[in-house]
């Protein structure tokens, strides 16, 4: 049966060094469904497996066992080209460490996913500038990452994630490397995107940040121990 949920994870395991003494079960039998236009916070201590889960959701990693359907398609059966397309068009990923390419300017970094999508010339520039505008950085577009503050770099990373107008944004501790004020600004941007209809999945270890989401998924030792609307969650 094809799931109609946007994200449908069934009995997923991620095991490192399987069969060896130093075997690590980062995820153990995790099942999770997320619908379109949700704003979900995945919360857990460091080492709980939340980043591993996020990487699998964002198609940056593959589960050891279990099925992951994204928009009805089984991810484990996709070719490299199909996966590239998903990463490019369906999911915008925001990393804790920004992961910008240092040699490129802000604008060029934001243009990159559009280039891989096949958008060229002035149209690409327009779309990238529009994304930078959304995060309030249009006037800094010709600066390189090293010439920007952490908050500005994270906003460039967000602009890159939203430049292709991907329907899902996944953010892995997007405020982790930022001070509380710039962190708040980043969160505001994410909420703005959610208001426009983007599905947001946010990873954090910070209860206060999680509290801004609609739904809280708590993960510990590789297993989901709580999954409920914010109002019911114990934070």
């Amino acid at each position, binding site marked *: 049966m094809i799931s109609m949920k946007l994200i449908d994870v069934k009995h997923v395991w991620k095991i490192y060094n399987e069969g060896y003494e130093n075997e690590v079960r980062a995820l153990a039998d995790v099942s999770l469904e997320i619908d379109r236009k949700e704003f979900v916070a995945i919360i857990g201590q460091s080492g709980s497996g939340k980043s591993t889960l996020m*990487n699998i959701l*964002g198609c*940056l*990693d*593959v589960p050891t066992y279990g099925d992951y359907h994204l928009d009805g398609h089984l991810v484990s059966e996709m070719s*490299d*080209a199909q996966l*590239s*397309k998903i*990463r*490019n*068009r369906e999911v915008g*990923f925001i*990393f804790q460490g920004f*992961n*910008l*390419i240092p*040699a*490129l300017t802000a604008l*060029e970094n934001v243009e*990159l*996913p559009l*280039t*891989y*999508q*096949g958008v*060229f010339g002035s149209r690409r520039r327009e779309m990238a500038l529009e994304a930078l505008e959304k995060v309030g950085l249009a006037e800094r577009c010709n600066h390189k990452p090293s010439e920007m503050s952490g908050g500005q770099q994270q906003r460039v990373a967000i602009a*890159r994630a939203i430049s*292709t107008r991907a329907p899902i944004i996944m953010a892995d501790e997007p405020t982790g490397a930022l001070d509380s004020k710039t962190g708040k600004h980043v969160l505001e941007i994410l909420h703005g995107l959610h208001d426009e209809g983007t599905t947001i999945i946010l990873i954090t270890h910070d209860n206060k940040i999680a509290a801004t989401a609609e739904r809280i998924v708590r993960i510990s030792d590789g297993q989901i121990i709580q999954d409920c609307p914010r109002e019911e969650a114990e934070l």
Partner: protein
Amino acid sequence: MNITQSFKMAIKSITDNKARSILTMLGIIIGVAAVIIMVSVVQGANQWSKEYYEKQGTNKVTVNAYPYNGKDITEDLYNYCLGLSEYVAGVTPNGSVYTDIKYKTKSTDNMEYGGPSTYLGSDQYSLCNNFTLAKGRDISQLDVKKENQVIVLGARVAEYLFGVSEPVGQKVTVGGVSFTVVGVYKAKDPDSDWSMDNMAVVPYTCGRLLGQNSASTNFTVKATGREEANKAVTMITGFLSGLIPTGTGDYWVQSENQWQEMDEQYTQQMSLVVGGIAGISLLVGGIGIMNIMLVTVTERTHEIGIRKAIGGSRRSIIMQFLIEAAVVCCCGGFIGVVIGYLGTVVAGKLTLDMLIFPSVGMTVGAVGFSVLLGIIFGMYPAIKASGLQPVEALRAD
């Protein structure tokens, strides 16, 4: 992603990482230029020695014969060689006298680098020693037979004695004996101080007039080819053994080609040694390329992780890296060739006073090798990292 975009991306990556690009190029430039210059200079030296031997006349056989009774074997040898036309192109006695040649008040005793050798030759002297006439005529068989007092001058001597005026028909004295100049040879070695053109030839039958009272004992035989020279040695040895039975004299017959062959062997060894050194510098250049490429693998692996995470497919990433490596390496190869050619011309002028150019095959080989190496190691991170899950590539920090 199309090729144009990959190309743009590759160019961008090259200009954004100038230090890395320049270091990579440097390895290729040095490798290519060193190989081209070194190998070309050795090839130039080979060429030089080949030309030297060709000027002297190749495929010569030296015959020395000393009958104890002082018998003159010149005519016997001459006639025998005429019958060997399959192997022998010419034969001449090769004796010489060092005495002054005078024209009016000018004497070759005053020449800057010493006077000429006057050879006592046959009508085939010029053929055997690779001289060609510039004007007049050569010594003839009749001159030899009639002991005509005629002389053919080498270019250096003619120029010294006559300058721009016409030598043919003039009378000169050789050791006080009058000879008529009937011809002048073309200069074949105009640039050296000890020129091969500092010579003159008179019929060997005039030797007695010049104080050579004994018969000729030294001869030069010109063979028609390399193989033929060896055959001529055997045949003439056989002939002499009949002419001078054991106990009645000494003789030996030698192919002059052995000197050239020794020289060729020597330059061949030089080629190997220098080629080896050049190969090592190419290898060192290659290792340089390899190093700089491998050092940046971690950095590039991380970059590849980012590119994959935002939707770069394996194909497009490998394409970008391939183009990048190819462009850097080809630029380096091109600069290396330019430097190599300039260096070869300069080195050729300095060491051999010759204009030498590198061979195309060697150039292509050197460039091909370093470019191939550069491309392989330039693509190495792309091939390695683009197959990883993005998360794994991103972990490279």
